[in-house]
């Protein structure tokens, strides 16, 4: 096993995927699977070609991606400073703890009715769903990350003249950044579930809308294409995120 190189492992993975798709295609062609329930891979591919041609696939993918990114960015930009502040103040932690504890178990889905009532079927409503779904868990990840800081480093910083704000900015933030980023990576996945659920319920574009719309018209290939696009988009963003992570944490490079 250990003698196998990385490239041969990639070869095995690709092979396994190709065999799976071929088997699926074969079952559909031979009539074992009804296309309404499960269209063949080539049928999904044909649908992809069509939707690429009229631009709708890109439109839906970009709409969902934009919503996730805006909601997630706003949520992170609020959660990071707030989490670091709460992580370094026991008093304010006690003040906000009950609200965080109440918000955290709420699935983002449960915010959909209220958000529709308040904001209508708008982009802001989509951003707010992503925000509500990811803010409280992000905050908890960040507070937890700040607890991992070596107290000796805080002591050393104070001994060198650092104020409370200096300690937060110069020690707690960079010191907990690796864990914060690890937490945000998980949260990014959750942000995607938030937006897809919101789009499944009420939207005029986006991958969730595309899936729901496909179902309405019995276009199972559109439904599956939408699902595949979610996977691919999340994978691409994950790779980009990892690049960004390495730039942000130069000291962890070996």
């Amino acid at each position, binding site marked *: 096993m250990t003698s196998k190189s990385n490239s041969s492992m990639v070869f095995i993975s690709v092979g396994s995927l190709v065999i799976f798709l071929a088997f699926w295609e074969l079952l559909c062609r031979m009539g074992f699977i009804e296309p309404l329930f499960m269209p063949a891979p080539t049928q999904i591919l044909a649908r992809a070609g069509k939707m690429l041609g009229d631009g709708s696939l890109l439109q839906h993918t970009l709409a969902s991606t934009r919503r996730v990114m805006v909601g997630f960015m706003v949520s992170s930009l609020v959660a990071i400073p707030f989490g670091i502040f709460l992580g370094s103040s026991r008093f304010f932690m006690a003040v906000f703890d009950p609200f965080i504890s109440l918000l955290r178990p709420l699935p983002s889905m449960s915010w959909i009715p209220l958000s529709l009532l308040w904001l209508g079927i708008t982009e802001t409503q989509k951003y707010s769903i992503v925000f509500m779904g990811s803010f409280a868990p992000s905050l908890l990840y960040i507070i937890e990350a700040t607890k991992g800081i070596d107290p000796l480093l805080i002591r050393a*910083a104070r001994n*060198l003249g650092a104020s409370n704000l200096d300690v937060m900015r*110069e020690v707690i933030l960079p010191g907990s950044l690796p864990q914060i980023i690890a937490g945000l990576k998980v949260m990014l996945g959750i942000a995607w579930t938030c937006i897809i659920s919101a789009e499944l319920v009420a939207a005029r574009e986006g991958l969730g809308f595309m899936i729901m719309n496909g179902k309405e018209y019995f276009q199972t290939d559109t439904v599956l294409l939408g699902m595949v696009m979610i996977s691919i988009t999340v994978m691409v963003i994950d790779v980009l995120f990892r690049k960004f992570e390495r730039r942000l944490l130069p000291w962890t490079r070996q």
Partner: protein
Amino acid sequence: MDPSVAASAAAPENGVEKGAVPKISVKGVTKVFSSKRGEVTALKELSLDIQDGEFMVIVGASGCGKSTLLNLVAGFDHPTAGEVLLDGRPVAGITPECGMIFQQYALFPWKTVQENVEFGLKMKRMPKQERQERAARFIDLVGLNGFEKTYPHHLSGGMKQRVSIARSLANNPQVMLLDEPFAALDAMTRQVLQEQLVRIYEKHRKTIIFITHSIDEALLLSSRIVVMTARPGRIAQEITNDLPHPRNADVQLSDRYMELKRHIWSSVQAEVLKSMEVEAGQ
């Protein structure tokens, strides 16, 4: 405190020239730590004066409260009773005047050597250009040129401690507090760093409090040695170290060196035995 006592204590201070006020004065300090398991008296009515420019080494068995004493001087902690004075004024909180060097280096892993050394200057809001030049000078002083852009996890223990010393010196503290700084290093690195520290001391004439449990280290570095008792920590003995400089191999083999070492060891030994009895009894 009785106000009349305070007044009479303050009065002569004004009349006497500045040199008579000790740099650091520990006055009847008691430190009790309370936890769920009960109370531990780490220091009991300890008094000690350290003059400006002294290199004072504190020797004692482990757990005798040496580090507690240093933490009180640095302002990390407050005495339960008594007071710690810096230049005649009580230490109210953490003060950059007393630069601390930790055994575990306490370098910021996300900052390069240069950025670590600049840290205290950045906290003082010194302009970038100026602090870079100043940091470069102290990196040079500890012989780490060429490592400015290196992150701490690429450095050896000895190099890390040199960064930590440079970081402290760049901040220009009046007092340097060193808490067993070389204990985690191998013997040869330790010797190099000891010699470097002596050179720095001779050049910059900081007041130094240095904690160790190595009697040889105490004899090599100090101008005065204080032996602490087992817990609760008090002063068992004070010895003025009159060994000539430089304390090279000849000095280390001299009769006077042996005599001092035997003398210190006998009092440390008694305290080590006592602390072992305390631990066995727990």
